[in-house]
């Protein structure tokens, strides 16, 4: 802890020097890797704003193998000018009273009292209500002091106040003991009551909280019970800061790997990753922590990957001491890349040609071929149509409007129009829904607040819904942010066009968004950004410029994450449209680099896909090894994914040589090509096709279910198609032998030759059967019902 020793009000920016005497430490391990190769002091700069200001500091050492150690206790810290400042041992903090008493009591947040499950619930708890996360301090003050006069606080005997007695667990409390009787929080509460339990009228005049820093920025802890102290510093609008290490509310996303105490002490547990978060007032910040076992023998293959994508993925895997799986074989690769890029299975001929190709770049060439195909466009038009929610909608969007909207999208994806331009055109779209189809987007969601939420989620990956009613509990978004963002859409108006099926969407140039708490007009404000100077006309124009502009950290990341999730089965941020402070990317550098390159490429969608598909990370086998068996998040092996509804139906049609018929589309059209989200059939619905009524990526169900299995087993899909396609019949007519038919069936369904055991058993099963066709069709049916067909592996 650094403490100011001078009665002046000047600010002191310090450079702290930490030294370490290694000889005096109780050294745990025995190897040379114990040697600390780097020493860091956090916070990197200390600013003391008054003679009473303090700042805790932590010293983190790093070993050659990347493991970090909390050396705060062992290190000697000195300052340049000891006359101005001095450094004290950590336990001296207890007796130190602090400045800025007006920002008390944060006890309510720190004690967890105002959480949604406790007194922060809409109806409170056990007769006592606080505003959720303290967004209404004035109301909280009234409720604490005056709602039940004479019950919650005792001016005559402050320590006997029920508020204190409950919090310290001195009387029965459903929420249990929140903090100790002798804790700083309890003392502060008692002091506040003792001073007359007065409200702080100047709360609004205090400098606003602008940021929260949590240190150290990352930790790699080895073994169980290793510790690391966190330090939190709040920054304010007037340039001051404050050590809030003992005032923030800590939480861990994975307490079994890294638990964090109420004082910010991290303790390692089982092997794994955790994101440690601290919340102060409206701001949540977090730092990643990795826990690895002691003495792991990492057998990392030299140059496991071949692209920068692999380098970044491997860097994370190395820190986790995980060995990636090997590269998958050509058959697996071909099936995977076909399903992912064009939504079809490779034909027997395509497979044969690929296997016979011996050139080293044959995978790259296949990728290039696939990206040039019309089916690639179809697949991605479908993906984007989900995001843009393309569908007809009763009286508001006619089927014609939906089709035009779909065509508009299709042309852009086919032309590989830069994504930023496409989204920009959509966000600013005005005019008739037939004449300028992207205006349908604003016709599909006519509620301004819902539209706001949809745009934030679809294009920025932000789920800001919570902030409509209260500050987002696990993210940075406040109600002010929410309504400031909604204000961009507050002037959208709609009117009938000549054609009754068409609507004209336009900006009226008038109309404001009102803040539900203050009742004031809220000017447009970018999420986490500035308040732009907008004239009445160009609110959406300003928004679009910001969204696709270089300052926007969200848009490019959201898009690359979406694409990554499609190919790897899981986003770098998961769910792919749920970016938030408390849901950090599993590999930040990878996400950043993907986004940077995507922007640098001129938002070239195909090149982004190629970067991903070319990487070994994409091409790894789904077979895990000993070290990555439990890993599901860091892309150390391929994920086994159920094939999504539309593609599954198309591949079923493909392997059975049958066609599909959808309303408004010619016979033989693929499910992927369906324009209107409302068009569906029983199969698609059962397998979780998105209705496109909800922007959320979770609306597309990829989970297997019993009804899916039963539908495939007993429904008309498999049996009926096998009969309709009559492949077996044709082959028997051609005079193919039993083993040839078995080969063809397995090749057709699984893209591989049958295993020897499969062949023997299948042959045995047809041997001596009276109806050969029926028997082979049964085998066909069995193959279609096997996981190997339904899953992309």
């Amino acid at each position: 802890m650094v403490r100011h020793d001078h009665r002046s009000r000047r600010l002191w920016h310090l450079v702290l020097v930490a030294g370490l005497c290694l000889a005096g430490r109780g050294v745990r391990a025995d190897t040379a890797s114990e040697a600390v190769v780097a020493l860091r002091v956090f916070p990197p700069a200390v600013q003391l704003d008054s003679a009473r200001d303090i700042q805790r500091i932590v010293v983190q050492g790093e070993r050659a193998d990347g493991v970090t150690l909390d050396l705060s206790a062992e290190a000697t810290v000195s300052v340049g000018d000891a006359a101005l400042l001095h450094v004290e041992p950590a336990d001296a903090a207890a007796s130190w009273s602090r400045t800025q008493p007006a920002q008390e009591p944060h006890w309510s947040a720190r004690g967890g009292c105002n959480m949604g499950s406790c007194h922060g619930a809409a109806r409170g708890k056990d007769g006592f209500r606080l505003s959720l996360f303290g967004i209404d301090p004035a109301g909280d003050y009234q409720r604490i002091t005056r709602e039940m006069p004479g019950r919650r606080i005792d001016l005559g005997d402050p320590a006997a106040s029920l508020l204190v007695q409950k919090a310290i667990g001195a009387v029965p409390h459903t929420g249990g003991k929140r903090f100790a009787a002798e804790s700083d929080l309890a003392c502060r509460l008692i002091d506040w009551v003792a001073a007359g339990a007065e409200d702080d009228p100047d709360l609004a005049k205090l400098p606003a909280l602008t940021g929260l820093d949590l240190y150290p920025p990352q930790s790699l802890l080895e073994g169980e019970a290793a510790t690391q102290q966190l330090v939190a510093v709040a920054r304010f609008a007037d340039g001051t800061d404050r050590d809030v290490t003992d005032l923030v509310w800590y939480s861990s996303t994975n307490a079994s790997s890294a638990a964090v105490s109420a004082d910010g002490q991290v303790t390692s547990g089982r092997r794994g990753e955790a994101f440690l978060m601290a919340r102060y007032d409206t701001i949540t910040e977090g730092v990643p922590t990795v826990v690895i076992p002691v003495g792991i023998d990492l057998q990392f293959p030299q140059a496991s990957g071949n692209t920068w994508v692999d380098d970044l993925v491997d860097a994370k895997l190395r820190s986790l001491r995980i060995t990636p799986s090997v590269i998958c074989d050509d058959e697996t690769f071909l099936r995977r890349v076909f399903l992912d890029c064009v939504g079809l299975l490779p034909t027997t001929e395509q497979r044969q040609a690929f296997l016979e190709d011996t050139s080293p770049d044959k995978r790259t060439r296949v990728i290039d071929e696939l990206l040039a195909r019309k089916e690639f466009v179809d697949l991605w038009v479908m993906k984007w149509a989900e995001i843009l929610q393309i569908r007809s909608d009763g009286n508001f969007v006619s089927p014609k409007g939906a089709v035009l909207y779909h065509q508009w999208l299709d042309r852009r994806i086919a032309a590989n129009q830069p994504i930023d331009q496409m989204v920009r055109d959509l966000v600013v779209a005005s005019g008739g829904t037939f004449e300028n189809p992207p205006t349908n987007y604003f016709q599909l969601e006519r509620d301004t607040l819902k539209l706001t939420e949809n745009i934030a989620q679809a294009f920025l990956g932000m789920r800001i819904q919570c902030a409509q009613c209260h500050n987002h509990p696990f993210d940075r978004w406040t109600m002010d942010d929410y309504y400031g963002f909604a204000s961009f859409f507050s002037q959208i108006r709609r009117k009938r066009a000549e054609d009754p099926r068409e609507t004209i969407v336009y900006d009226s140039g008038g109309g404001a968004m009102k803040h539900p708490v203050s009742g004031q007009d809220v000017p447009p404000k970018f999420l986490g950004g500035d308040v732009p100077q907008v004239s009445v006309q160009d609110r959406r124009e300003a928004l679009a410029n910001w969204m696709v502009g270089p300052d926007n950290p969200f848009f490019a990341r959201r898009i690359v994450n979406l694409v990554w999730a499609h190919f790897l089965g899981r986003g770098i941020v998961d769910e792919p449209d749920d970016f938030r402070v408390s849901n950090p990317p599993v590999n930040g550098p990878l996400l950043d680099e993907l986004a940077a390159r995507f922007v640098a490429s001129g938002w070239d969608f195909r090149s982004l896909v190629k970067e991903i598909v070319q990487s070994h990370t994409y091409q790894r086998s789904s077979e895990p090894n000993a070290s990555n068996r439990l890993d599901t998040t860091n892309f150390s092996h391929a994920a086994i994914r159920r094939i999504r509804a539309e593609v599954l139906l198309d591949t079923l049609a493909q392997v059975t040589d049958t066609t599909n018929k959808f309303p408004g589309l010619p016979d033989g059209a693929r499910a992927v090509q369906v324009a209107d989200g409302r068009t569906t059939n029983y199969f698609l619905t059962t397998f979780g096709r998105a209705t496109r009524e909800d922007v959320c990526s979770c609306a597309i169900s990829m989970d297997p279910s019993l009804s899916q299995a039963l539908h495939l087993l007993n429904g008309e899909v498999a049996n009926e198609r096998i009969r309709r396609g009559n492949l077996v019949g044709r082959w028997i007519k051609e005079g193919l032998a039993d083993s040839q038919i078995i080969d063809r069936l397995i090749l057709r369904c699984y893209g591989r030759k049958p295993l020897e055991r499969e062949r023997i058993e299948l042959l045995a099963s047809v041997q001596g059967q009276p109806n050969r066709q029926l028997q082979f069709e049964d085998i066909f049916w069995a193959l279609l019902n096997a996981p190997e067909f339904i899953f992309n592996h």
Partner: protein
Amino acid sequence: MPSSERGGGFVRGGLLLVALATGLPAGLAAEKPPTYEQQVLPIFREKCCGCHNPGKRAGGLDLTSYQQLQAGGNSGEVVAAGDPDGSYLWQVASHESEPVMPPNADRIPDDMLAAIKAWIVGGLVERDGAKPVATGPVTKLALDPGAIVTPEGEPVMPPRLSLKVVTHGLRPTTVTGLDASPHGDLLAVGGRQQVLLVSPTTRQLLGVLPFPEGNCKTLRFSRNARLLLTAGGIAAKRGRVVLWDVASGTRLAALGDEYDEVLAADLSADQRLVALGGAAKVVRLVTTEDGQEESTITKHTDWITSVAFSPDSVLLATGDRAGNLFLWESFGAREWAVLKGHTGGITAVSWRGDGLVVASAAEDGTIHLWDADQGTKIRSWAAHAGGTSDVRWLRDGSLVSTGRDCRVKHWGGDGKLKRDLGAMADIGVRVAVNDSQTSVSASDWTGTITVWSLTDASQQGVIEANPPSLETRIAEAERQLATARQACDAQRAKERERRAAAEKQVSRSQVAQAAAETALAKAEAQREQARQQVAAAKQQLAKAKQAVSNVRAGEGNDAAEEPAETQPAAGEQAVAAEQHHAEAVTQAKAQLSKATEATKRAAQAVQEAAAELAKATAARDSIIKAEMQVSADAEAGRTAAEQVLTRWQDERAFAEQAAAQR
């Protein structure tokens, strides 16, 4: 809900009214009453439906359809057939009751009002040919003074009690337990582990009753003033009710065993039952005899905030924090009536002395009056913005209340404001009316208890709700005494000093006077001497003149006889002598007039010195008198301080003695 009989078969006023109202011959209503559709709706459309329409539904009320009108608004039904005074709509439209309607506008014209009234009286007929709604009993708000039972005999006052406080807080804390004795100049004030007995008239502390059970949240004197119920406990830990005998100041019984403090409790007038409730949402009826739970009321959905027995012990009113208000039969706890109307938590219930009307206060800011027999609302009005905290009946059928607007108000029994007694420093919590019905004591959030006169609304003073310990009082008295002694001594010294100074001034004046008199005597002597000198000079002159005339005569007769050369020489000598003496006379006269002047001055000086002396003497006398008075006052102050000290020392001795006896 109303049954023809309740409890032990009481026949009450309301039942008679039912009989009368339904027994009216139909022919008496000769004139056709107005109908909703023809007469009333047009009035509503013009004056009310701008807000009370299906879209806005201000106050939850829609007047545009007969069904909606009958359904009422947020505060319950708005019309009672045949009873305009009991109809909320009439009360606010006629500006009898707050909030007046239409808001911020003149009252609607009298002919319209008359039509509305006639429509209500006529039974709320919907349209021509429709039947009138069965008329309920007409509410009689008037109080029959004879129905009030006042305690008889000598006022019940406690004996001398220990003034030793159990606790003394850092500062006063909110007082929620406050009640005045119905027979005796006695006010009970709840505190932490103690109950203070205070005289509302002198505002002096009369005694401290220890309440080791915890905080005393509720206090109730029995109807005969003989018992005092104290209830409370430790929040979220335990709750108890303790009964005291006022006349002896002794504990009689401890009842109830709650797991949170008792928030509300009352003692039935027959002293057989105690009702208590709190955060458990349950009202328990326990017998005073053995503390056994006789019955339980579990219908409440939130904390019990107020309970009160009717003056005849037959009914019990209970209210909770969710706004539920019920009447129960005390015996067996059977439901008597559900009093629907409050939209905020109930904070207080109070029975009018005749037991016919219940008043309730709630966080919705209103006071409601209920017909206890029928279970119907008689009247309601907005009393305190933000919430009404307490309401109490006076014996004359008026009410006092306090609330979150920090004010204490005195209302007529019809809900009309008689007087706004004034404001307190923070939100009002409890009120109590003293036995003589002349003053109201009201507590606020800061723990201050202010006493207001009901006759002239003057503030009579403040009751110390956080009295210091006897030790502190003694120390303070000792300090006061020391100060008084010091003042006394200082005054004595000052008196001596000033007296001496005055005496000195007098003697100084006496000396001056003597000197003046001496000077006068001297001057007079000098004048006498001068006078003699003048006389002598005159004599000499006369002689000289004689000599001159002698010489002149000698010249005429004896010129031949005397030698010529001697005669002229003698004449010249005589004339010169005459001239010399004439000058001497002139000189002597001048001396005399000087001496006379000096004498005059000396005489004046003597006069002045005498006046000076008289002044000094008078001044001395007045100083002596004044200083003696001041000294006497100081002495009196000292004596008073001595008496105060003695009193508190005596109180301490008494307290120690009392403690030793216990």
